[in-house]
């Protein structure tokens, strides 16, 4: 069967709990609750680490020092940030659409956190290994557009509204090439199941077989998660902070929590779909390989973000529709021909 460490631990807990709880259902519910708690811990914990990492990486690339006052080497900076954000006054601007304004930051976090259920962290360690895994992930990610638009509309401010419109334009434009790029991976695997996609990469990683799709996915993923250089949704120099303009304190922090959850999830998706997931040489357990690859991808995305200047909205949309989409379609065609030739050989 499976031999992921977390999977084996779960099996042990299951066996230990069964005589105490008495019924299978209660044990299953407990394990599920544990899994959900772990997932939320991962998301919020990673946000804490990534805020610091982001500033450190940015500083390193721009030949600065970065935060270095709070704690040894500035390591407690994100904790200090969190305390500051929590103690800030919760400013509610006048003339807003109260319900939508309050709901928007909460709803933005839901799809970002929800897709963690479909990520295979190790052999057998996946919360919901459903048949339509990859498609469900894409479908849930597409839900994150509307909360941005809601926030932009509800704030009743020009900058926020422009930011909301930009979100819709860029997210819809890059969702299409992203789906077509991932089609290549699905064609090679013959399944949408996340565990099957990882299984298919036991010998060869898909980054070797699908280099075009890998590049398209990286660009589209950066756009979908509003990472620089594609963060024109907030574009500080043009529209202050886009949909977040009118938010303060913890509500504003929720947007950032979602952004860092997205950074982690695009890194996890890149790792799972193209870099072999938890596969790696035997001397380290799968989970460790997975963590190493994901951290490398996080650093790569931050590196890209802080190296390139921000794009202009019209350039970006033109690039999405007129360059990336045709390349993605060609990639699907090439993959089809490749599979046909491979079967014929």
């Amino acid at each position, binding site marked *: 069967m499976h031999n992921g460490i977390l999977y084996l631990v779960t099996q042990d807990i299951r066996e230990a709990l069964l005589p105490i709880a008495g019924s299978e259902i209660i044990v299953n519910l407990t394990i599920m609750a544990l899994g959900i708690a772990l997932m939320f811990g991962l998301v919020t914990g990673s946000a804490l680490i990534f805020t610091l990492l982001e500033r450190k990486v940015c500083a390193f690339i721009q030949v600065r020092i970065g935060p270095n006052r709070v704690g040894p080497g500035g390591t407690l900076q994100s904790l200090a940030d969190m305390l500051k954000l929590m103690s800030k006054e919760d400013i509610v601007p006048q003339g807003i659409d109260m319900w939508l304004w309050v709901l928007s930051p909460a709803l933005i976090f839901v799809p970002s956190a929800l897709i963690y259920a479909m990520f295979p962290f190790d052999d057998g360690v996946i919360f919901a290994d459903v048949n*339509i895994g990859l498609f469900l992930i894409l479908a849930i990610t*597409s839900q994150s557009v509307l909360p941005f*638009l809601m926030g932009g509309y509800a704030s009743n401010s020009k900058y926020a509204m422009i930011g909301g419109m930009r979100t*819709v334009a860029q997210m819809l434009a890059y969702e299409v090439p992203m789906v077509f790029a991932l089609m290549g991976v699905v064609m090679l695997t013959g399944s949408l199941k996340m565990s099957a996609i990882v299984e298919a990469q036991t010998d060869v990683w898909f980054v070797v077989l699908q280099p075009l799709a890998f590049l398209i996915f990286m660009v589209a993923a950066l756009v979908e998660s509003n990472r620089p250089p594609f963060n024109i949704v907030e574009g500080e120099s043009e529209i202050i902070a886009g949909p977040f303009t009118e938010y303060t304190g913890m509500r504003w922090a929720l947007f950032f929590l979602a952004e860092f959850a997205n950074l982690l999830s695009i890194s996890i998706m890149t790792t799972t779909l193209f870099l072999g997931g938890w596969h790696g040489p035997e001397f380290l357990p799968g989970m460790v390989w997975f963590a190493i690859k994901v951290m490398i991808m996080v650093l790569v995305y931050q590196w890209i973000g802080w190296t390139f200047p921000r794009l202009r909205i019209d350039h970006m949309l033109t690039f999405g529709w007129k360059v990336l989409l045709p390349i993605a379609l060609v990639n699907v065609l090439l993959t089809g021909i490749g599979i046909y030739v491979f079967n014929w050989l």
Partner: protein
Amino acid sequence: MTDIFYSLVFYLIALVIIASALGVVMEKNLVHSALLMTACFIGVGMLYIYLDAEFLGAAQFMLYSGGVAILAVMAVMLIKHGDEGPRDGGNGRALRAIAVASAFALVIGMIITALPYAPAGYISQDNVSELAEMMLTEYVLPFEIAAILLLSALIGAIILAKGDGEA
């Protein structure tokens, strides 16, 4: 135990769908209506997944609440503000509306009670690959026709947006 849990989930989803659908009609703010419609779409998608049609459910999320709803919300937002103003919602036809609605409910109720329950349908273990198989073998002609229809709609949209000379 499991059965109770299952029906509980069903009634929860049904509650979400009905409440948001009622909200779409009764809400006076058009943007709120459009957003509640999204909630309704998501509820219907959940119902599909509940009924073992996961692929259909995910497609519902992606196309309806991820695409159609956003276009609807955008269109509503672009309408000039302040035009709608506070309305009382009624137009003096409440009695007639109630009569039509209850007649409709009566007919639907009669149909539901008169017809026998359909036997449980075929539940596929892997409905993605079965769907793909069917689309590309048995139903390949309708599939292709739909593709051509969509393509012509796409080109039509571009020509409409760009104007005759430019496109």
